[in-house]
């Protein structure tokens, strides 16, 4: 069963003009948001995007933009309370909050 989160919230943007068809985005996306069609990547369903940022990191042509971050409520609450980027606290110092 494919699980999908909220609609129309993902910050994923894709410029097909810049795509050179290397297929890395198809390879790295854990939700199969991209697929290849006629030697170019196309987005299948952007609501499947979890904003992990793997596609952006591996698109050397800058065709993909996304605001990567952790989809973790306690990380975001911590960020609201104490400032800084949302971080799930899995820093190896033993203060992880169970997010991984």
């Amino acid at each position, binding site marked *: *069963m494919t*699980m*999908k*989160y*909220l*609609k129309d*919230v*993902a*910050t994923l943007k894709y410029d097909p003009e810049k795509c050179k068809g290397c297929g*890395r985005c*198809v*390879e*790295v*996306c*854990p*939700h*199969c948001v991209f697929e290849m069609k006629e030697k170019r990547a196309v987005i299948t369903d952007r609501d*499947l*995007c*979890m*904003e*992990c*940022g*793997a596609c952006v*990191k*591996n698109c*050397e042509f800058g065709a993909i933009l996304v*605001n*990567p*971050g*952790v*989809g*973790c*409520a*306690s*990380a*975001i*609450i911590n960020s*609201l309370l104490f400032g800084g980027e*949302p*971080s*799930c606290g*899995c*820093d*190896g*110092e*033993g203060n*992880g*909050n*169970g*997010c*991984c």
Partner: protein
Amino acid sequence: MSEQSEKSCCTSQTITPSPCCGEKGPTTDRFVRMGDLRVPSPAVQHVGTGWSRADRWGAFRSRISAFRMQYRVEPGLYAVGSPDKTSDVFVSANYKLSFDHLRRALKGRDAWIVVLDTKGINVWCAAGKGTFGTEELIRRIRAVGLDRVVEHRRVIVPQLGAVGVAAHVVKKETGFRVLFGPVAAKDIPTFIDAGYRATREMRKVRFSMWDRLVLTPMELNPAMKKFPYFLVGVFLLFGLQREGILFRPAWDGGLSFVILGLVSVLAGTVFMPILLPYLPTPSFGIKGWIAGLLSTCATFLAGGVPLRSVLLSLVALILFPAASSYLALNFTGSTPYTGMSGVEKELKRALPLYFTALVLSALFLIIYKVRTWG
């Protein structure tokens, strides 16, 4: 568990006569003999593909407690089977459970494993933080002298590591081409046999009922650690009488609330994760609220929690589903499909509602107390 004993429990035979460590970088005159092969590397450890009882116990402990933060293997180069210059090179995190899943998947094969220093964090989380990242991979490829260990120029990185590893940068800096392997280590043999190709199914991250179930202790444990505060609050609330704090009314009145509190914790941290795909709406907050409301009502109907007034029933119906909702929303941290924008949107809506529920509950409880005394 010390790092030394950690190491020994996953190392079937250690052939590291070299006194230097992986951090110092290779020297050309230092070799390790592995079968017929002389490996020009600072340190290579030979590891088996089986899981010992200690490995299984470690895996279990790291699932249920903060022990995972100490469950590490030493970064560096490892050998499985009898690898040579043509053998595949796999990259892993130094979270021992990640490493163990990989070596188990390599049963019957000859391969090298390069373990990155991810501070003991699993591949996906570490990639998100950048410790399982481009720089560390480049540094580690150089530190273990990989260009002299193998003659080919490819490394197989777990797909979920792509969040931190930019393949084109690694290629440019080291000459090694990054192949992203499948999401699950168990698919590695199929991936290799298919000519380093992963099917669409192998590229997808899954979230089965079992996956969700094994994650529930991560939510249940921290919630139960805070439960004593709730117990004290309930004890004080119901125990507080004109004569002082009395045990009898605290027990009589508070027991129902304690049971409902426990049920709401279970609803938010266990029932909701298990029922995740079957509860309506994609919102975790609403899913958790539904799970909490159903559990609270079911507990009422079961008759085990006679509440003494309409006001207290109202408080229960406001407070406990809200608590379940909050705990369920926290489960977003354990799921592999919730994005930051979505969770932010949910929180913006949910936090004021949780606050309102708390204030209303407090107000009704004060009215209840005033009435019972009046």
